[in-house]
């Protein structure tokens, strides 16, 4: 098996809104290999989230090709995609998106509900994931009882509990103070280095981008060549 985790060819996403048409992503070619930690940067509206959503199969491309973890995403049904994402992709949101009525460990356990694991194994996995993010003593806290930084660490635990090959994060530090942001980035860095997770992270923060092994820039829907930055960046 090749080492390529993500590969896109002329990947394009257009949004049609009545008369007008927005090209959010145009002919993007990107190859990301196993174990890479790639930061996606660029001005607002440049298509960073759009690319990340296409990689996560949360949306469908309007043109081009996309293969992720060996799957041609265009060929998968909605049901296949749901199962595929559950098994192979962990997603971290800017605003954490924890389920408010569930405790930390129930939130982390949630993706495992879709697996064949029994209750005891699920609890065990969830506990280990929470210990890994340094929240082993917060199992029964609800999101409301946690700080923003702690919430995001629970969300990261939820993203890794199924032991996915790929972790995608859309501005994971966007809602965090400097200290919490550093904790979250350290955590992603560890997951990349110690556990070999492939990570793609959208960020506005140049400091955050330093955690990554590679930075790719987008501008007006176009993925710039390696090493090239947008003008006045």
């Amino acid at each position, binding site marked *: 098996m090749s080492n390529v985790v993500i590969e896109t060819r002329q990947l394009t996403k257009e949004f049609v809104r009545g008369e007008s048409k927005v090209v959010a992503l145009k002919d993007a070619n990107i190859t990301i290999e196993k174990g890479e930690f790639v930061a996606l940067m660029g001005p607002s509206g440049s298509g960073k989230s759009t690319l990340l959503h296409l990689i996560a199969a949360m949306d469908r491309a309007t043109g081009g090709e996309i293969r992720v973890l060996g799957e041609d995403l265009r060929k998968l049904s909605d049901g296949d995609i749901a199962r595929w994402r559950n098994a192979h992709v962990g997603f971290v949101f800017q605003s954490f998106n924890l389920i*408010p009525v569930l405790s930390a460990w*129930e939130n982390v356990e949630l*993706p495992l509900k879709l697996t064949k694991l029994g209750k005891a194994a699920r609890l065990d996995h969830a506990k280990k994931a929470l210990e890994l993010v340094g929240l082993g003593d917060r199992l029964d806290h609800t999101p409301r009882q946690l700080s923003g930084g702690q919430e995001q660490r629970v969300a990261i635990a939820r993203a890794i509990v199924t032991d996915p090959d790929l972790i995608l994060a859309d501005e994971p530090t966007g809602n965090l103070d400097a200290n919490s942001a550093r904790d979250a980035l350290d955590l992603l860095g560890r997951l990349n280095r110690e556990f070999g997770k492939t990570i793609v992270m959208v960020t506005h923060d140049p400091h955050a981008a330093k955690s990554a092994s590679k930075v790719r820039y987008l501008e007006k829907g176009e993925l710039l060549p390696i090493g090239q930055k947008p003008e006045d960046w």
Partner: protein
Amino acid sequence: MALPLTYNWRNLLARKTTTLMTALGIALTVAVLLATAALVDGLKTSLTSTAHPLNVLVMRKGSTAELNSNRSPEDYQIIKVKRGIAKGPNGEPLASLELVTVVILEGDLGAINITARGITPQGWLLREGVKIVEGRQFQPGRREIVVGKSIASRYPAARLGGTIDFGRGPWQVVGVMDAGRSAANSELFCDLNQLAADQNRATALSSVLVRAIDEVAMQALTNDLTADTRLNADAPSESSYYASQTQSAAPLQFIGTFVALIMAIGSCFAAMNTMYAAVARRAAEIGTLRVLGFSKGGILLSFLLESLLLSFVGGILGCLLVLPLNNLQTGIGNFVTFSEITFDFRVTPELMLTGLAFALFMGAVGGLFPAATAARKEILTALKQT
């Protein structure tokens, strides 16, 4: 495996007021339905447990009730010698010529119509279920009556030792009878000849009750009675006769069911409204769940279950509301005989299960569209709605 039910339960608890209001609406609907059904069930039980399976009621052809039937002593002579009629301990055939009439009883609650039944001594033998619980049987040739226990308990004048006035003068209450759940609890029994004289109906009596030896004989006996041209008779089994009397509950059943139906439509919309609000409020959460790998079907099921859970709470509340009605005694005018019949509400476990099923049905109907809306949401659109 799908989303855990605790997730739905806690979401219901998280919006207590809405949940409680919606559940209460469902509860009231279930309560109306169950109260109606309990009343009808009580009446039916009362009427159907009156009958003995081998008793045949001989009336004039075309009579809908004993009250408008007409049988003469000559008919009785023909009927009692028919083949297939069982014999009593005294060797006499178990056949009782009876007069059924309606008398007016004055009580604190105003005048009510009561069925008075004039019977021969054989009449007691045909009704094993009827027990004298106070006093004694009436004596032939005297103006004495035995009253059903429901009447005795509801009308002070009809208690043991009291006298009540109807026909040509006072009658003395010499006994109280307990007839189980049967309609005889709401009747007065007295001597046939006394009542016939009182009502000027010496030759125009009502019916003849006979006991068949067994089921085979019963069929032959029925055929024989209806075929006899001298009698011009209908001869329904006592069971089917009383079953047809349950028609008197039909208007009430109709009104109760109708009201419950209207309320059910309201409750469905209330549940739908509540669930739509839940789906709208949790749009981003739905998007998140989809990203975690939950399928559209999983989302649909979860919201449907939440609606079912909500209606289940309503159903339980509804059952609790009607439970105190169980065995509560009430009276209803029998629309066939125009006399009062007293019976108990019957809130049976089966009935409560029906109520729960009805509640769940409302939850399913109310929850289906909101759940489908939740499932149809595009992930990104859902995530953007906060």
